[in-house]
């Protein structure tokens, strides 16, 4: 019984450390890898004024073997007027606007994979079909044959027309007003199979022409990839920009109003404040752009505040586009030209090249770009001269964010070394008790010739056994908890009723069983029974309390940056932890082992 307690204690400690370190490491890995998804490995940045002739810089960088791809970005802040709510008073969101070249941007970042919508969501599609059918109702009705109308009537009238012959139905159709028939079509539009049957290929072709996305999901993706809708510039916003995208407890997204507020159906207004060459604010610039798709990078702050827009559009909004200065007296005379500018160039490393090596290569490319500009008499920001110009790796760029996370993990490690101490102290105490219990046996062993070292050996082996068993159990438990983290978290945020009830029932039956089986007033079993049922009842009541207060959300994406909890075990740390636990157990066992070896055999044998 006592050794099991020790094994259990070790297992719990190991599991605890493994879970915490795994989550922290997973978190750090997500931070690190999100760099690749969001902005490649190295960033050349020159905010606000921008790097002119960036195409030459991109060419110089991609000429380096270390760089796999490079892409220019213009970033700025602005407001996005959302399409919701219905009515005139629309909401606006503060937004970070990234002007991108979609093709090369997708080559540098994981943009293509972050696109949320691979097709029109089912609810939205039904909503859109309804709109579409109502808009084209008269046209559709004109194109329908009599038998199609009969089918329409049969399908919308349900069982009322059961048994009626086609002739009867045809007579009813003739009596129906066009408006009634249009309403029937609208009603049927929610059922894709039925409406397809009634309209036939010709009718569907009419709808497909008006809204090709509904019948061809590829368009939804390619719209997102090219930042276009119906061939015109469009934007892709982060999934959490729109308040109409609601995260469900299962981690999926529901679109509010039964799928109505799906952003790619609508358009929004982007407004920015351009800055002139002297740093002063100019008149606000606005542009209305349709939404093409939405992206979900998994990094909450990005998904909540960024919108991707074609680079030319943002250059116009920020006055970073190519411009000419003309003589006010003679507008045909061009005094000077200013090339288009980009505030960032993102670079992705070739596979196997680390960010630091790439950084050096990009630096070299920038120097070439500088020299070429100097020869041609063009002005570009200079490395080492212009303080705003930076060539940074993703980790350097986000040091203020990654640094604290790393520190947090180290802090956790340190704090949890204290758990090891607790674990060690527990083993010392438990083994001390075992030695006390086995004093007589130790005397017996000495009397048959066992050496003191032999006695120490027995207890060290015992410690090794307890430590190993506990560590393995802890790894198992840690793995179980870590990989099921989402499910556990979910059940905490929405605890099922049956669980609380089950705990209360278990508590009640344990209490009853204890009272029923009270053995002639023995105190210990009574106490254990009562305590056990109290603990069970406590868990049950706590669970119900959490439930009644709407659950607790531990992993709030707004706090932890990512929308999902890391749930893979950090095996390196896990084995180190387990090894540490085994070593701690053996060391802890050494203390009582030494006491056991010091036991006077004569005293021990007299001990009855």
């Amino acid at each position, binding site marked *: 019984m006592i050794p099991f307690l020790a094994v259990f204690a070790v297992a719990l400690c190991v599991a605890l450390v493994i879970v915490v370190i795994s989550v922290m490491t997973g978190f750090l890995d997500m931070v690190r890898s999100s760099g690749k998804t969001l902005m490649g490995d190295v960033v050349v940045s020159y905010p606000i004024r921008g790097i002119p002739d960036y195409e030459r810089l991109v060419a110089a960088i991609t000429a380096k073997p270390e760089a796999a791809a490079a892409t220019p970005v213009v970033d700025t802040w602005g407001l996005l007027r959302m399409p919701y709510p219905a009515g005139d008073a629309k909401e606006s969101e503060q937004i970070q606007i990234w002007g991108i070249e979609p093709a090369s941007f997708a080559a540098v970042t994981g943009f293509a994979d972050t696109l949320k919508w691979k097709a029109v969501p089912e609810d939205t599609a039904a909503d859109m079909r309804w709109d579409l059918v109502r808009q084209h109702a008269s046209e559709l009705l004109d194109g329908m044959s009599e038998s199609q109308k009969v089918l329409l009537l049969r399908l919308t009238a349900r069982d009322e027309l059961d048994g009626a012959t086609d002739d009867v139905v045809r007579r009813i159709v003739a009596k129906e007003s066009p408006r009634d028939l249009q309403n029937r079509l609208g009603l049927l539009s929610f059922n894709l199979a039925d409406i397809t049957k009634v309209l036939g290929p010709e009718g569907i072709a009419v709808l497909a022409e008006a809204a090709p996305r509904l019948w061809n999901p590829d368009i939804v993706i390619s719209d997102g990839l090219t930042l276009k809708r119906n061939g015109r510039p469009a934007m892709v916003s982060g999934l959490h920009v729109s308040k109409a995208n609601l995260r469900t407890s299962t981690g999926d997204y529901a679109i509010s109003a039964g799928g109505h507020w799906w952003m790619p159906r609508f358009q929004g207004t982007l407004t920015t404040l351009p800055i002139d060459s002297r740093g002063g604010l100019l008149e606000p610039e606005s542009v209305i752009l349709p939404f093409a798709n939405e992206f979900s990078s998994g990094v909450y702050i990005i998904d909540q505040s960024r919108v991707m827009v074609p680079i030319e559009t943002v250059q116009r909004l920020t006055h970073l586009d190519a411009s000419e200065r003309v003589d006010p007296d003679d507008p045909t005379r061009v005094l000077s030209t200013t090339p288009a500018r980009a505030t960032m160039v993102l670079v992705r490393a070739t596979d196997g090249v680390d960010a630091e090596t790439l950084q050096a290569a990009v630096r070299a490319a920038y120097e070439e770009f500088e020299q070429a500009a100097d020869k041609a008499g063009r002005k570009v920001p200079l490395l080492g001269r212009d303080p705003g110009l930076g060539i940074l790796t993703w980790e350097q760029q986000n040091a203020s964010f990654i640094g604290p996370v790393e520190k947090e993990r180290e802090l956790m490690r340190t704090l949890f070394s204290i758990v090891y101490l607790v674990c060690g102290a527990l083993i010392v105490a438990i083994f001390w008790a075992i030695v006390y219990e086995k004093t007589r*046996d130790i*005397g017996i062993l*000495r*009397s*048959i*010739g*066992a*050496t003191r070292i032999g006695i120490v050996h027995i207890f060290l082996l015992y410690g090794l056994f307890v430590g190993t068993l506990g560590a393995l159990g802890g790894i198992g438990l840690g793995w179980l908890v870590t990989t099921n983290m989402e499910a556990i978290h979910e059940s905490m945020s929405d605890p099922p009723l049956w669980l609380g009830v089950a705990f209360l029932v278990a508590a009640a039956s344990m209490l009853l069983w204890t009272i029923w089986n009270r053995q002639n007033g023995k105190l210990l079993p009574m106490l254990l029974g009562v305590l056990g049922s109290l603990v069970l009842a406590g868990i049950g009541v706590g669970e119900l309390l959490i439930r009644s207060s709407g659950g607790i959300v531990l992993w709030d994406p707004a706090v932890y940056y990512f929308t999902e909890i890391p749930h893979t075990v950090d095996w390196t740390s896990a084995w180190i932890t387990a090894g540490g636990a085994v070593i701690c157990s053996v060391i802890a066992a050494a203390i009582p082992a030494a006491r056991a070896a010091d036991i006077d055999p*004569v005293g021990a*044998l007299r001990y009855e």
Partner: protein
Amino acid sequence: MSNPLLQTHELCKTYRLGRVEVPVLKGCSMHVNSGEFLAVLGSSGSGKSTLLHLMGGLDRPDVGGGEILHDGSSLASRSARQLDRYRARTVGFVFQFYHLLPELSVLENAMLPGLVPGGVGAVEARKRAHELLGRFGLEHRLHHRPRELSGGERQRTAIARALANNPDVLLADEPTGNLDVQTGGEILDLIQEAHQGGLTIVMVTHDQRIADRADRSVQLIDGRLQPS
């Protein structure tokens, strides 16, 4: 005449009980010849067990309190490790309260001394345990725990354990003290049988009738030995 197998010379042993020093042995001199069955008679608390522990190398006499000779050489001159080996190979203890390990089976208890350093080794120990337990009528009890045995069966297991490493001397401390007369008699028969097989035996008891079964007996009175 050859040296006696075991010899004590003016043995003194004092215990401390709190602040009080209690002299238990005040100069015990005796010898046991090889192949002899010696009984040490004494009332309870007379120091019989202490004498046995000293002879078995479990305890050491007071500083300057005499010496114990085994085959003519003093135990005091031996290192802790040599004493461990002495306990493993030369002597075998039998106690009044059996002192079996409760977690181990009868067979494992009887094998145990074979596994300590200096023991005969696991294979030989198993063979010898089977043989001894068989001879003592315990073959049907090999895999039972001590708590499932009767007192007599426990003591027979303890004797098998004491003989596991083929010792020179059996040191028996009131081996029948916890048993009824008939069972005690059976145990004494067993010990006598071992003695007839050539084993040297030192048995302490408070019972004159039991001491009578020995070749010779000495009496421990007031910390000193007298022939009886």
